[in-house]
């Protein structure tokens, strides 16, 4: 009996281990580090106005750690008004281009397609603190090598009934990105969705977030209306944390910061060009289009995951937000079946007695 009493636990633990392991399996097509030695940004981006509307504008009430705006609202969801300006140009093969302005809020990417360099946008904010980044992406070429270029700026918006001074907690994230480009995938503008999962987290290890990424269909340069003769080019990788957004290389260790519960502590964003357009399709000047993919990690105090706090950064754990399914979700059936099987085994053995 002592032997039997150990089996269920062993089996259950084995099932748990199996499911956790299987969730972490990655398939790499090809390993190809991205070269980004000549990145220079000529694309200016700035915020003109922030508020609830054009008639209800805000001024930053703090400049640390970033320009910080306070939106006095007790509503569950509050809409933020952004009036932005994207300036600057770059060239591809001598053609003057503008970039694609993009807003990234808490790791969520809002690509914008506008021929105008001044425009407005509305974002829905929940109660609490949010990190918002404006990124302007373009393409530059040098000796036939195309590289994405960008400029960016970030600010913080706090929504609530009163302003709370923001303090950041630091911890480190180690990561490794394995990027591939699949030339067989080709390009079809109708298939160039932005929501494809190109980054897949694999292992979560203590206070280090180590993950691998697979980048499929990295990007290309070519006219959208004539989808041929594309030159594949790599994507750019950004890391958005509570202290802003920055461009990172495909592997390394970065320090990330957080300002509290349920706020993403690390948003890894892959932005990849999907071509450029020219008049009359996009007006003038030419414009580069970018797709994006994101994986976010956030700390929570929910009982099912370990909390992230300022004082215990080293014990923090993160859960993937998307696109992978949390491994625990796959456990239910095996556990139930395991329990039932073990119960049946025990019953049979008992009856045999």
């Amino acid at each position, binding site marked *: 009996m002592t032997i039997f009493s150990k089996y269920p636990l062993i089996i259950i633990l084995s099932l748990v281990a199996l499911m956790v392991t299987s969730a972490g399996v990655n398939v790499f097509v090809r390993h190809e580090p991205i070269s980004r030695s000549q990145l220079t940004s000529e694309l200016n981006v700035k915020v003109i106005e922030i508020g609830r*509307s054009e008639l209800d504008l805000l001024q930053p009430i703090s400049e640390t750690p970033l320009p910080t705006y306070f939106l006095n609202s007790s509503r569950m969801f509050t809409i933020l008004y952004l009036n932005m300006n994207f300036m600057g140009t770059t060239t591809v093969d001598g053609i003057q281009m503008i970039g694609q302005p993009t807003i990234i809020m808490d790791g969520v990417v809002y690509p914008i397609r506008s021929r105008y360099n001044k425009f407005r946008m*509305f974002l829905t904010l929940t109660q609490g603190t949010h990190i918002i980044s404006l990124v302007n992406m373009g393409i530059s070429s040098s000796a036939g090598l195309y590289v994405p270029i960008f400029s960016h700026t970030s600010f913080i918006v706090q929504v609530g009934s009163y302003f709370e001074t923001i303090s950041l907690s630091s911890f480190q994230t180690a990561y490794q990105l394995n990027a591939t480009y699949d030339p067989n995938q080709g390009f079809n503008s109708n298939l160039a969705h932005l929501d494809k999962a190109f980054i897949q987290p694999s292992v979560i290890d203590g206070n280090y977030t180590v993950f691998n990424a697979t980048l499929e269909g990295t990007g290309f340069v070519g006219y959208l209306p004539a989808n041929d003769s594309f030159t594949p080019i790599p994507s750019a990788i950004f890391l958005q944390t509570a202290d802003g957004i920055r461009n990172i290389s495909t592997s390394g260790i970065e320090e990330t910061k957080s300002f509290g519960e349920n706020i993403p502590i690390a948003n890894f964003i892959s932005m990849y060009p999907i071509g450029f357009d020219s008049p009359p399709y996009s007006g003038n*000047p030419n414009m580069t289009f970018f797709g994006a993919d994101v994986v976010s990690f956030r700390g929570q105090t929910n009982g099912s995951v370990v909390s992230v706090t300022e004082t215990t950064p080293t014990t923090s754990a993160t859960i993937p937000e998307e696109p992978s399914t949390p491994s625990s979700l796959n456990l239910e059936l095996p*556990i139930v079946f395991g329990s039932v099987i073990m119960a049946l085994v025990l019953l049979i053995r008992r009856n045999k007695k």
Partner: protein
Amino acid sequence: MKIRVILIIIVLLGSTFALLNSNAQSQEANFTIVIETNLGNARREAYAYYLATVLPYLGINVELRFLPFSQFVGDLLFVSPKPYGIGIVGFVGGSVIAPDFYDLYHSQGFFGDLIYQLSSEEWQSWLPNDPGSGGITQREVDNLIGNMTNSLDLLGERKQLTLQFQQMFMEQLLYDYPLLAPIGIFSIWHGLENFDPEEGTFGSAYLGAYWGNENPSDRQNNASTIAVRLASITGNFDPLQVADSETKQLLEGLFPQLLMFSKKDYSPHPFLAKQFNWTTWYNAPNPDPMVGGTIDIPYGRMDFWINDDWVWRYPNGTVFGPVTVDDVKFSFDLRTVPHTLINGKSAYQYIDHVETNATEGRVSVFVSLPRVDDIITFGDMDIVPYGLLGGDLHFANGTTINALNDTIYNPFETEEWNAFENNPVQSGPYYIDFSDVNQYKLGEYIYKWANPDFTFPNEWDSPNFDLRSPEAEDAYFFAWADDPNTAEHEKPTKMTINQFYYPIVWDFNAELSLFEAGEVDLTSPTAFGANELQAQINDPRFDVHIVSTTATADLLIFNLLDPNLKKYNVRRAIAHMVDKESLNYIIMNLQDPQDSPVKPFFKNNYYSDQWKIPFDYEAAKSFMRQEGYAVPDNPPTLPIFSSVDMMGVMDDSLQLDGLYNAPAQPEIVQSEVAETSMIQSNAWIFLAGIVILPVRMKKKSVFKEKRK
């Protein structure tokens, strides 16, 4: 005993893990829906982003698809199954006299059939079995809508049915969920007494507006003038052929119409007709001439008795002759002859025929299956002189044709029509002399003068109308002038504004300068940005007015055949997640919530918000749980923003000032200028961004079979 303990441990352990997993699974989305709207409409995109943020709180994941408008409309109308869960769009058109839901929510209505798919067997069999809808059938919905549509007792039976439908729609149907109703915003110099923003300048002038003592001294025009900038006008002043809004505005008040309709609620006022009567019965002529006789369907007759003192007058003051019943009949017949090129003739095709009685001064109009819109179709019709244009017409080459009988030649090319188009004989409260062709070029100006021969029909001449109206409900049209509470200024005896002044200036930006200098009296401040709007609100010299429009709010149109959205409780849960107070800031907190299928435009008589669905997260969760969905404590995933068909798709409406980053190609610049001009002359349309779907035209086609 030990085995039992082990068994219990195993079961408990298994259950615990299963429970943990079940909790974990509740973090997963219940389902995913696609929200689709037209790319480039910043307001609708903002609504979609809002839903993508809030619906995960109900365990509903959202994928966004912003498509070119034509593709989006294609999905709305012609694709089945629908590729979206929610489509965001608004409608303009439809009846302006009273709410009419036939097109939208009747299973045989154009949009009811194509967008909402109410005629599908799947929906008709599902609806009675949906617990949230309380067992109602689409047939019951159709019956109620049909009764509303056919009721001409507007403020009695029809109003009651409309209230009944509003409750049914909000509490049992919710085929769509309306958001915020569009409005119009304009500024006018302070001090125009009796000015009614809803009626506009011409309507107010007709009702006795005048510049009073509070008019600031730096306004440049005199007390009897209203000055309005026009961007450009055409050189054709025939009201039957003019299609552009600027020239139409210029021609306002120059030609007779049977009735004048208040822009507030489209109630009719006396104009050329001094009396009006409307009767219906169930005894229509059989539309099949081979069979003959009558059939038992509603049939209507409108009788107009016209004033006998209106005269056609050349701009130089020469009187051509009286306005007669023949002019009215000719103006109708001209619109319905096969070869006519007149715009909008389809609106008249269901009027059976028109009879006249010259002795009584009566025009009688016969209509099968009459609807409230028929009164405005005929009553608002511009009338042209039969004596000038109704007989033989001559071409320059000597060919002669008859205005109504010829089917080959275009009568508008004849000498008579050309003369009329260039400087028409007129008969209205105002007149314009178009004889100088250089007068209406860019940079010039036009005066519209009060007509000295115009006799003001200041009240209905209908002391005995009750005797001619056996049914009391037919009498509502006469309530206006016979109501002792009608303000005296609504019954003027002469024009207090004796001239309109129209500088013709193409550059829209010049309008702001002209307005602030007091050269023109009106402008659209929103076209110049929020700062200008705020400045004009704060400036005591100007009055900023907000007026309602006849467009619907943007609607969250549900795909009723979606396995999840077909449940009323799910649709209701989504509606409860919409915080209209927050959404309102997207349009500068200037719009009104529409909390009913009825447009707030009908707020005076029909609209009721007593069944509105407030923002209520707890209620939303409750409705989801009633349908067996788990509601997560936190949104399980971040929104996914998808964009398709990016090729050639650019966003124009996000612009602030249209500045380019690099020199633009000339043709693009030109199109931008045109676009800007359009936007600025219809500032509220730009602000509201309502996409025009021609309800009215479609309605006619829907009724075609029915009327037959």
